[in-house]
């Protein structure tokens, strides 16, 4: 078993997770359907009343319409990151699911690929559900907004890779709170989610431009509001780079952890 062994058999790992998901879909469907309603009520109605509208891409944009795509971006990030951290950790450490898989023709590369693609899939499912709610409020601009689905997959992939790298290195499940506290929460607040980045000092804007969520928010907003332009290519490229760079670290990290 030398080298990098990845066949299309990774789909079996994805199918395993999908099968479990189907059994609990009633519970899994609730957060992406309910969360946007809570946020829209709090930020859109509550805060939006104070803010009114702001300028986005040179156009005056209603605050609720401004944050709605960011809510999707946050959900994309959280769905896949939580899947490949807490859920994957439970499968790996407590349920020994990966150990059982490794006694079959599946390889560690296929297991990790299946897990990461499943994380990205959960982002897509969550996005589709949120889109239904946001459409109901007239917050999405179709047909451009349909691009949210491939964007969700790309963003999901990037954050699933980040999550899997964390899972490969943390000693205990509690340690996973560290990347949430240091990485996920600051991004949630400072990635152009609830206010435009140019309200921040220049140095903070500089940092924010390296955060993957900044680029995901940008892509979601451009798709949802139908205001795509050339600059979006940079965001796409940036998320692709995150995935491509982190995926090998996820695989080698998990190999070091599991194959002894």
């Amino acid at each position, binding site marked *: 078993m030398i080298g990098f062994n990845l066949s299309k058999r990774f789909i*079996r790992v994805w199918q395993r997770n999908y099968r479990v998901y189907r059994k609990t879909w009633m519970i899994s469907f609730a957060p992406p359907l309910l969360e946007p309603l809570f946020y829209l009520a709090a930020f859109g109605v509550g805060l939006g009343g104070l803010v009114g509208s702001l300028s986005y891409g040179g156009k005056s944009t209603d605050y609720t319409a401004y944050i709605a795509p960011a809510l999707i971006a946050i959900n994309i990030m959280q769905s896949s990151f939580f899947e490949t951290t807490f859920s994957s950790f439970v499968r790996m450490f407590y349920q020994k699911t990966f150990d059982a898989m490794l006694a079959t023709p599946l390889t560690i590369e296929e297991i990790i690929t299946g897990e990461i693609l499943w994380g990205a899939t959960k982002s897509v499912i969550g996005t589709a559900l949120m889109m239904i709610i946001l459409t109901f409020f007239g917050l999405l601009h179709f047909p451009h907004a349909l691009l949210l689905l491939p964007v969700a997959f790309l963003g999901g992939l990037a954050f699933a890779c980040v999550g899997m790298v964390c899972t490969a290195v943390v000693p205990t499940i509690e340690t996973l709170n560290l990347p949430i506290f240091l990485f996920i929460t600051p991004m949630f607040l400072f990635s152009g989610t609830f206010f435009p980045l140019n309200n921040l000092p220049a140095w903070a804007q500089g940092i924010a431009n390296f955060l993957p969520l900044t680029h995901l928010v940008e892509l979601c907003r451009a798709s949802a509001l139908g205001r795509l332009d050339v600059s979006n290519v940079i965001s796409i490229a940036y998320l692709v780079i995150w995935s491509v760079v982190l995926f090998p670290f996820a695989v080698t990290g998990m190999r070091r952890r599991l194959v002894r």
Partner: protein
Amino acid sequence: MSAIIEVKNLRKSYGPAVAVDGISFTVQAGECFGLLGPNGAGKTTTIRMIYGFTPRESGTLQIFGTDCDTAWRSIKARIGVCQQEDNLDPDLTVRENLETFAAYFDIPSALVNERVASLLQFTALEGREHANVKDLSGGLKRRLALARALLNEPQLLILDEPTSGLDPQSRHQLWSRLDDLKKRGLTTLLTTHYMDEAQRLCDRLIIMDQGKILVEGAPLDLIQEHVGKSVIEVVAPCADLRGMLTEKGILFEDLGQRLILYSNDGETLYRDLLADHCHEGCMLRPATLEDVFLRLTGRELRE
């Protein structure tokens, strides 16, 4: 007979600790082969290397006559494994566990239903197919693990401590299933801490300690060679007994309050002992594999 497993100078260490220290053995087709040894002897590491979980450090390994480095995926497809820890999928039912596992082997779905039905019957799990794995008892879980290991119709079955923690009923049930599999010609490699289990199931076995093979052979041959036909246990031996035994050149182990005597003519010795030395606390019994094991690996605790 052809060799199913051929291990030569297999070695694995974790840092300075040597887990498996250059062992060699061969398992023939249709055999039930046992790996015995105290905790930490290297049994699990050895079988993990055989089923391709743990990378070898050095040595060669051939399974089904093919080299494990090149044909590992097709080799793994022909091996069934019951690992030591319970790693059934707790998120799924009994049937779903089997179906999902069959998919890992890419077994065509038309075959899966057929095999699942026959394995549920074989392991007496019919009627439980929709039960959640979380709710199964230890014995049922082990049976399901066996069914799962047989899904790919393996030509080699690897069992790592298959009956640990099971009640006597479940153990005997599992043994009789393994007997059935043996009759069908399935080659089995197993580790166990139960000497009665090894004696009952294994055609041949090795006893390992500290990563090395101490002995290899058929259970009865090993007993004959290392212990003899029978064993006499003497509780609270009288003062002159030790001297008498040494004088007569009878092999014995001194545990302080208890002497263990090994002999090929146990009955004569037993009668002599009863007549001249001990009036009670003396017991004659056939020698077992456990006697061999304890003689070879000692009686000190390992961990």
